[in-house]
């Protein structure tokens, strides 16, 4: 009775295997049908086909900016193409998850052009990237937030430069109250700060109604969703609130992870979601929820997004175009000696105010890292050069914003200083 015959056993194992396969198929199918298949960003570089050169450039102004940067440095680019790898090199890199699909696209494409250079990038988070490049266990790192002075001091010789940029979108769920996600609600910095500080707890708060006279805002509780894990998205979001709102700057500040007042204020409900999917999922599941996600994630999942008032006083809906305008209009010329750029609340009538660059981290003298030999260093420097020029064309197809020309120029100056024991790596 207790012992089962081996025949029985085999049959049962077969049944179990069948059940497992069915469950996996149903769950997988359901998941991919609810979240659009492109949301699994880590798979994108594998599944997405190579965009042809023409189809990538859809928006004319992006074309202009990209071609501007290409033409301005055409002579240098051509001089770079003379470099050819002589030995096979394996480059290790790790860091932020936000630029991972783009960086993987680059590494795959670069490997097709230069088959001897294999670059493997692991998206382990900005903090992990900083940690590993500081510990010199990877050849280069990546971080969404610019490094603090203390972090730079901990890794002497480390330098960083922006490789792409992204916006942060405000998303909300009021469908149950008759406001579909296609309705664009207006937000100001002070209203967003009020919601995330727990002082605005109802959707029909006078401050929100005043911004959205046409919308039937309900007498409903606001569930406020934020990231629970540290992230560059949180950095950009809190950076914007700190720059525009002194109250926020003194009580909360900005960082990759902050202590959210809304979590502990009586009567308010703060919720932390892990990653963009966690935030989007919590917003989607909760009537009356608001949250912030990477623009790329909002676009790919067709989330409804709100318009945010920019420095010029206009209501701007986030898009690749409005984030690019913000980057182009950000005040001041980037200084190659310190490329930690802040572009939140940028000037310009059409600039979207919540945006941030994401950075690659490398030792200026690459021999500082014992794992990096000369051949590797040459390949890395050349790959960087390729990424900020040719690589930028792949950004729009993956919903990233290509670098504006002035930042490409500043990046170029920085890359020219990369060296190996004093010998420049780029001519």
């Amino acid at each position: 009775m207790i012992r089962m015959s081996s025949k029985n056993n085999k049959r049962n194992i077969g049944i179990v295997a069948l059940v497992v396969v069915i469950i996996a198929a149903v769950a997988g199918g359901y998941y991919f049908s609810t979240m659009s298949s492109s949301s699994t960003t880590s798979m994108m570089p594998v599944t997405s086909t190579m965009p042809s050169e023409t189809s990538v450039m859809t928006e004319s102004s992006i074309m202009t900016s990209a071609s501007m940067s290409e033409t301005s440095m055409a002579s240098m680019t051509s001089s770079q193409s003379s470099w050819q790898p002589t030995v096979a090199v394996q480059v290790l890199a790790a860091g932020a998850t936000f630029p991972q699909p783009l960086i993987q696209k680059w590494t795959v494409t670069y490997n097709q052009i230069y088959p001897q250079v294999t670059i493997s990038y692991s998206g382990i988070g900005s903090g992990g990237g900083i940690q590993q490049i500081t510990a010199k266990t990877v050849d280069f790192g990546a971080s969404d937030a610019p490094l603090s002075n203390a972090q730079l001091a901990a890794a002497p010789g480390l330098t960083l430069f922006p490789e792409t940029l992204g916006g942060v979108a405000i998303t909300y769920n009021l469908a149950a109250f008759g406001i579909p996600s296609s309705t664009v609600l207006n937000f100001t910095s002070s209203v967003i700060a009020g919601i995330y500080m727990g002082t605005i707890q109802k959707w029909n708060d006078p401050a929100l109604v005043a911004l959205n006279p046409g919308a039937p805002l309900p007498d409903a509780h606001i569930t406020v969703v934020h990231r629970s894990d540290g992230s560059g998205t949180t950095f950009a979001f809190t950076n914007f609130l700190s720059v525009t709102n002194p109250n926020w700057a003194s009580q909360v500040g900005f960082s990759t992870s902050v202590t959210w007042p809304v979590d502990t204020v009586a009567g308010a409900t703060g919720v932390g979601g892990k990653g963009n999917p966690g935030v989007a999922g919590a917003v989607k599941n909760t009537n009356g929820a608001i949250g912030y996600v990477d623009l790329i994630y909002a676009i790919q999942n067709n989330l409804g997004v709100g318009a945010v008032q920019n420095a010029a006083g206009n209501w701007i809906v986030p898009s690749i175009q409005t984030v690019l305008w913000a980057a182009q209009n950000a005040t001041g010329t980037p200084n190659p000696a310190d490329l930690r750029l802040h572009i939140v609340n940028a000037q310009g009538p059409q600039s979207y105010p919540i945006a941030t660059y994401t950075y690659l981290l490398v030792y200026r003298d690459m021999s500082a890292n014992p794992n990096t030999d000369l051949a590797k260093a040459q390949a890395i420097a050349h790959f960087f050069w390729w990424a900020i020029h040719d690589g930028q064309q792949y950004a729009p197809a993956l919903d990233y914003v290509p670098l504006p020309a002035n930042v490409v120029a500043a990046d170029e100056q920085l890359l020219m200083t990369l060296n190996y024991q004093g010998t420049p790596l780029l001519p």
Partner: protein
Amino acid sequence: MQAQVEKVRAQKRARHPDFLHAILVVTAFALPVIATLSLYALLNGSVDSIQAFGFGFLTSSKWIPNPPNGGPPILGALPAMYGSVVTTLIALLIAVPISLGIALFQSELAPGKLRLPSIFLVELLAAVPSVVYGLWGILFLVPFMSSNVDPWLVGSLGFLPIFSGETNGLGMLTAGVILAIMIIPYGAAVMREVVTAVPRAQREACIALGGTKWETMRMAVIPYASTGIIAAVVLAMGRAIGETMAVTMVIGNVARITPSLFLPAETIPSVIANEFTEVAGNGIYLAALFELALILFAIVFVMNLLGRLLITRLAFHGKAAHDV
């Protein structure tokens, strides 16, 4: 001839033990050594935090890793410890009776044709990866709790502080429910083994005295198997308190101590999973996460120790009663 064979066998036996002995000793000591090394690594990693916060780390409920004024982080483990204990208790409250019911059904009541399929289905639950439970939690359980279970609890038991406040499905109750589902197969499997192992004579004696099926289970089977059942509870508890991925996805991740089970909270593993990747270049913050891991290590260790003590004590009693 026979003696010859015996002699050869004895020689073989004499030779093999040495080799076997060495392997067994090494494997037996490997695990304690690994556990000690990881304890050392945790202690080593958390030195900064222990020095900075001292005992206050266990009693402070503030969690400010990046203060706005740029000062040193202010960190306390109490909200995470509270969330871990509460979610584990909810999970045990739900899972222990269900596991016991499953075990009794499978060993005592189920007809032969139903028994094996039932065992396989329950064990299938144990094979599901926790991240899958987490996805299921976000996509199904959270909306289900927020639209069905939570409003019902507020309506009928809303006067209790544990069932008050705003409900949105993300919180300790949902985390406890998902944990319960995850630990049921472990509890049920161990409980079934111990219940099945109860000697036939024990049952027959009760039946002979005129006991019904239920009385036999209650008076003859469960008391005899109680030590094993407690062992199963301890095993399930260890699994629940260390569970990370599924909990992180449904608990709401907020450093807050609240009586309401509906509100978001956090557990020790969820804090570590959330914050570890972005913690670089911040010595005390990183050390605090190590100290959280150390606390978890200590909690699980103490729980297992208590479970062991309980088992040995009950084993004595059970044996004494049995002998009489």
